[in-house]
């Protein structure tokens, strides 16, 4: 097992490398003098000179990439000019909030999505199936930001169950109850689309599995229907559900940006949007690389989970 994890970690190195290349190339598309582009409104002569020196911006493209990569490997993601603070500090401060939001949503979408898909498959063409299928269709069609706004209207303004916004975690305020109270609505709003996708896929994976011969064997043994569905069938269906969960984790992690805007959540997504609007290129670059790298690592965990579940995968 340890060997397998190591192998997967090693295989992630070229992917991480590729990610930095892609981000670098995208940012290199910015027309004009890179120093001016990066500094934008902050392009004082001293700043231009400093940044040219720090990032080797007058060097050729390839050299610039390696300087940038080398800096990142030593933990130096550059300095945000709009915030006047190291990029990595800002990203780390914000990432906790995003992780809390996206993590909660991910768990919600995994549990609810799989449960809905299983029930739907087990009651194929019954009322539960029809209801779930419709709810799923609605869920994957509604823009998460619109859903978030409607939830604020209904549950925060009308019913006053939850606060509208004002999550303070990133700035050191609020205890567990406060955080949890602020988390409910954004986490649900973010989870809805992913839940729909997971439910859809779980349903078809279950239908596929339920026709297999080993399900008939379980029934022939006298195993009860509950255990056949939630044990034998779901276990086998998980093999095709887990990769989808991996993809949905990416959607939840990056889709958090909308929800962070709607609920004023102090996460990386909102930071990125602000940075884009202020043309703070280094902050965008650092934030994107950091989040993408975390996602790559998360996908290794998904692979490991898959290999634990399926003994047929060679570890």
């Amino acid at each position, binding site marked *: 097992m340890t060997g397998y994890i190591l192998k997967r970690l090693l295989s992630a190195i070229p*992917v991480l490398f*590729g*990610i930095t290349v*892609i*981000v670098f190339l*995208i940012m290199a*598309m910015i027309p004009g003098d890179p120093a001016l582009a990066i500094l934008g409104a902050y392009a004082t002569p001293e700043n231009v000179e400093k940044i040219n020196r720090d990032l080797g911006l007058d060097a050729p493209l390839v050299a610039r990439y390696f300087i940038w990569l080398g800096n990142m490997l030593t933990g130096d993601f550059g300095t945000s000019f709009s915030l006047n603070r190291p990029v990595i500090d800002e990203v780390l401060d914000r990432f906790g909030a995003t992780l809390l939001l996206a993590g909660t949503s991910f768990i919600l979408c995994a549990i609810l999505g799989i449960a809905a898909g299983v029930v739907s*498959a*087990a009651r*194929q*063409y019954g009322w539960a199936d029809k209801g779930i299928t419709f709810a799923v269709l*609605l869920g*994957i*069609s*509604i*823009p998460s930001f*619109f859903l978030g706004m*409607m939830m*604020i*209207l209904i549950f925060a303004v009308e019913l006053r169950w939850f606060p509208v916004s004002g999550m303070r975690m990133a700035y050191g305020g609020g205890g567990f109850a406060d955080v949890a109270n602020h988390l409910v609505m954004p986490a649900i709003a973010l989870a809805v689309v992913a839940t729909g996708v997971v439910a859809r896929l779980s349903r078809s994976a279950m*239908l*596929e599995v339920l*026709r*297999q*011969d*080993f*399900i*008939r*064997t379980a*029934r*022939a*043994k*006298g*195993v*009860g*229907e509950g255990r*056949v569905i939630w044990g*034998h069938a779901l*276990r*086998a269906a998980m093999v095709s559900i887990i990769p989808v969960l991996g993809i949905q984790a*990416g959607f939840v*992690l*990056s889709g958090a*940006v909308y929800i962070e*805007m*709607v609920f004023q959540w102090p996460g990386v997504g909102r930071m*990125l*949007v602000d*940075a*884009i*609007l202020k*043309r703070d290129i280094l902050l*965008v670059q650092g934030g*994107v690389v950091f*989040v*993408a790298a975390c996602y*790559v690592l998360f996908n290794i965990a998904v692979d490991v989970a898959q290999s634990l579940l*399926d*003994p*047929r995968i060679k570890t």
Partner: protein
Amino acid sequence: MQFLSLIARNRLAAAGGIVLVIVIALALISPLLPLPDPDVTDTANRFLLPGAEGHLLGTDHLGRDLAARLMDGTRLSLAVGFAAAFFAAFFGAAIGIIAGYFGGRTDNLIMRAVDMLMAFPYILLALAIVAALGPGLVNALIAVAAVNIPFFARNIRGVTVGLANKEFVDAARLAGLGHTRIILTEILPNVIPVIVIAMSTTIGWMILETAGLSFLGLGSQPPQADLGSMLGEARGALITNPHTSIVPGAMILVIVMGINLLGDGVRDALDPRLRSGALTRPMAATQVRRKGPVPASEDAEAVLELQGLQTQFHVKDRIYKAVGGVSIKVAPGECLGVIGESGSGKSVTALSVMGLVASPPGVITGGAARYKGEDLVGAPYDHLRRLRGDRVAYIFQDPLATLHPLYKVGDQLAEAILVHHKVGKAEARRRAVDLLKQVRIPNAQSRADSYPHEMSGGMRQRVGIAMALANDPDVIIADEPTTALDVTVQAQILSLLNDLRRERGLAIVFITHDFGVVAQLCDRVAVMYAGRIVETGPTEAVLDAPAHPYTARLIACVPELGGGRRRLEAIPGLPPAVDRLEPGCAFAPRCLKAQDACRQGEIPLEGPGAREVRCLYPETELKSEGVA
């Protein structure tokens, strides 16, 4: 045409399509409608509610007419979404076709890059692109199209790889056509349906994503506004004037939902598996719709007794009579062989006993299946479940498919015990290992921790037998348990079953297409053809002097009993399709002795004593004293 009618038949898809057409039509003709100018501000009339004089949907925070802005925004959002889908499909398809067509290093390089792009969380990549290009609707469009290219490229590449090696492409190459010609004339036409499906499933996403970027302020810039930026602008007044948010938000929802409904319809219409009903889930027990009366028990001795059992498959408006009234019985300690070609209904007969025929489409429509005199057809599910595996157990063909691939065999055995007995986990495990020993699996203790794929075919089949024996049942129904095995292993398994039958006095129903196996193991044999029994009697008597022409031909096909592999396919002609059986003898089309009388009507299964035959001109006259 057929495709269109399939979509039309799917009412939801049709509804989605209609909604979509209406929205598009409205958006297109709105400049002709008598609506106020969408960009004229009127701060005196801010936030008018829907229904206000001259403003159908009210006004926004600058007093602009919401209805007019909604139509403008809808047109813009639709245009941007479709454009993004088009560009993603165009470039994705181009990349995919090039990778798939040229293969080798080109393919490798391109697909590496595609994988890298797919390693990004989707929206993050779009944000990075917008960051580089700067906010703006066109840039948002480019970003959304770009992040969807890998998805198209990967799909299209897969299809192209399959096509690139087809003969017609080779032929074109040999004819000296250039790569461009081949791609355009041979590959592209075959790829287009895949592109259409991929577009129909992603276009909703693209509309959502471009609206999302606009919502964040990174897409369309004022005064131009698509639905996303309308929503974004309205957000500040969400609590005081919710209608300005609800109007554009609901429109996005309606559009995307319409597209998704239609897209699902397209996908379903194109997926042949859905049409054939192959994706329906079998229920816990076979459906029972018994029409005739339930026959009374005739034989108190028999541990298992089938009487006129009928099982059908209802597929759409067709009815396949897989089992057309089968009566057999087995006494304790007896082994009955049921023999027939594939499709003769022998397996369906076996599965019907415990309600294991996949349903839908299977339905038991008549007769009775009695265990110790008690009818199991239509018995409550819970009762049936308690008997399954405990009193009547099954051994299936091909244990690689019939054992759960992700559970250790020891656990699968222990489970068979645990569902019927209140014993501890450790005790169940001990018994499981014992069972493995009984079926002569070496190193049973460690083998219990193996997964099915780690064992040989013979070992897996022994596990299957051990599982059937787990609760010391009265009846074992073995459905071709040795077909997948080679001759030596087959012989071992048969002698194992034979020993167990003698030791434990269990009754065995042995389903096979192999007379050699029947000769080795079975006391009596029933020959099935087209869902009915055509001959039955003591094995030796039937083998020595078969009465039904079909049986005679089966036996003649076997070169030498007891050796080698025998197949029944050697008989000329095919068994009849059981959805349109002619009246009279089902074997008539293949029978050399067939007369007109054979096709006239029902021929009964009859004979003196233990032997019975369903034939007007049997090969041997059955005499009552010729019975063992």
